[in-house]
């Protein structure tokens, strides 16, 4: 091989290699992530089912039917309610736990591991375990309530009680995880800010509110947005919380805890594969997710940056 060929090869290697290395990610993500999401819009404009090869163009029919379906609005209400109940306490608790972990603790690693333990369990495992704990007749939680002199609760039956039970599952699984993310951000805060606050006699909780939270604002924004996107797609918890049979698809006997993804699942994969209708549901969900995420961003951004 002469030297000019070699240097040409070398130049080509330096130019092309980077693109070659990032190609697998972009190609595969485009094929299995972005393309399906975009194609959903196309499918949603058709009468599309797995059972026939005819896909008649239907315009906005699917959307019209969807927005006219009270069950859809019911699912939206349930989803937002579970989102609020499962996310607000979760992130507040995570902030508090992270705050405690910044102190000079004995056994810090033990506490960190213990906090992350729930995150190792799958959503299916979490839903199954908590369905047992929230059992009406033999659940531990009702037994505790009764010992305290309160009455038994039929957790699955009510709207509020079922939402609380599902929110508890979400809180249990994700609080420790978010606490670790907050903790990592908190460790970058300079110590003298706290020292002067301590001299001024500010309590620990006061310091959390006026120093820590403003200082880690970007992290708070991030966790709020991600938890929102996640919370609006909750599926396994309500599906497995229902006893059995068709209730697992409708989210309880009177749809008291059917979420949007469960609604999508019902129409797309349980009732004759109405792919057009399910795709319309997915697109409407997408718009809802973007809107609520942006709203949350604007809300959290109002946390005053510390001077």
């Amino acid at each position, binding site marked *: 091989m002469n030297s000019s060929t070699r240097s040409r090869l070398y130049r080509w290697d330096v130019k092309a290699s*980077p693109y070659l290395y990032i190609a697998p990610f972009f190609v595969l993500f485009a094929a299995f992530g972005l393309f399906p999401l975009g194609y959903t819009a196309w*499918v949603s404009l058709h009468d599309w089912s797995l059972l026939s090869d005819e896909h008649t163009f239907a315009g906005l029919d699917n959307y019209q039917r969807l927005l006219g379906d009270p069950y859809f609005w019911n699912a939206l209400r349930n989803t937002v309610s579970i989102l609020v109940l499962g996310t607000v306490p979760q992130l507040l608790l995570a902030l508090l736990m992270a705050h405690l972990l910044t*102190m000079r*603790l004995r056994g810090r690693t033990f506490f960190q591991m213990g906090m992350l333990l729930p995150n190792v369990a799958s959503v299916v*495992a979490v839903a199954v375990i908590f369905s047992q704990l929230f059992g009406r007749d033999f659940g531990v939680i009702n037994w505790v309530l009764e010992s305290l002199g309160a009455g038994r609760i039929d957790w699955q039956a009510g709207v509020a009680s079922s939402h609380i039970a599902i929110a508890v599952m979400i809180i249990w699984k994700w609080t420790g995880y978010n606490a670790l993310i907050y903790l990592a951000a908190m460790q*970058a805060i300079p110590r003298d800010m706290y020292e002067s606050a301590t001299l001024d006699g500010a309590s620990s909780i006061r310091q959390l509110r006026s120093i820590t939270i403003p200082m*880690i604002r970007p992290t708070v924004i991030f966790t709020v947005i991600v938890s929102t996107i996640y919370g609006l*797609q909750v599926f396994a918890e309500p599906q497995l919380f229902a006893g059995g049979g068709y209730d697992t698809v409708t989210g309880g006997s009177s749809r008291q805890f059917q979420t949007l993804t469960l609604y999508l699942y019902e129409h797309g994969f349980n009732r004759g594969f109405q*792919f057009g209708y399910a795709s319309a549901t997915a697109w409407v969900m997408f718009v809802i997710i973007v809107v609520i995420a942006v709203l949350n961003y604007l809300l959290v951004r109002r946390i005053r940056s510390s001077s």
Partner: protein
Amino acid sequence: MTMQLVKGGEAGPAPRIGRRSHRPVRTLSHRLRPGRLTYLTLLAVMFFSAFPLYFSFVVASQDNSALGRIPPPLLPGANLVDNVRRVFDTVPFGAAMVNSVIVAGTITASVVLFSTLAGFAFAKLRFKGRTALLVVVVATMMVPTQLGIVPLYLLMNQFGWTDSLQAVIMPALVNAFGVFFMTQYLREALPTELLEAGRIDGAATHRLFWHVVLPIARPAAAVLGMLTFLTAWNDYFWPLIVLSSPDNYTVQVALSNLRSGYVTDFSLVLTGTLLATLPLLVVFVVLGKQIIGGIMQGAVKG
């Protein structure tokens, strides 16, 4: 791509794994002496974190009649072996375990390899559009890909892959969090001089990758591998939709099948839960420190 990985990904300081992190001396940690209340609160949190898992073990070791007792049993019984046998009789749980190992193993190998490749390019190679493409990677971490489920199903149907493991594996072969994570790590951990020295010796890029980049990336690859395996093992929505015959079920789908009968046999279902979660718990207890490190690396600058 699932949420668990997305949850960890943020713009922030470069990960420092397996090396002593170089902290400024006066930071927040170790700033206050904790009081008794702090320890009590944390111990309460520990209790609530551990109790549901402990209780599922209790239920898994009792027979169903014990579960009707008031007060409920809080100590393990002697029925665990019996219940395990019943799980394997009810659903092909052994096959499900094998399927999950295949799925999670393949996905982990692929994610780690492709993330390291792309991370190397983004961290250390120069090319047009690098910054813009990296922004695209970060943005895709926020995309709710679960909503593309219907066309994804149609796509798999076209390929004739429905009800097969490759349908579960294919969409998860890459993820944005992995690329981002590796980029951050290699930016810090990979000395540019080392690459330049290799270039001067006339090494082609792929040789640099195998002989220089991979050995240095190993600690981060281990953390990414663990997080990916955990996520893939626990994934539920997509496998539930695309798999239809019990022999192809992954562990999570088999588990949900145990649950979905009209009468829930809790000692059976929770034994299944225990079997599905135990391998992960063992890994977590052994390697938990690194996993925690990995999650904390993803955090945003304050």
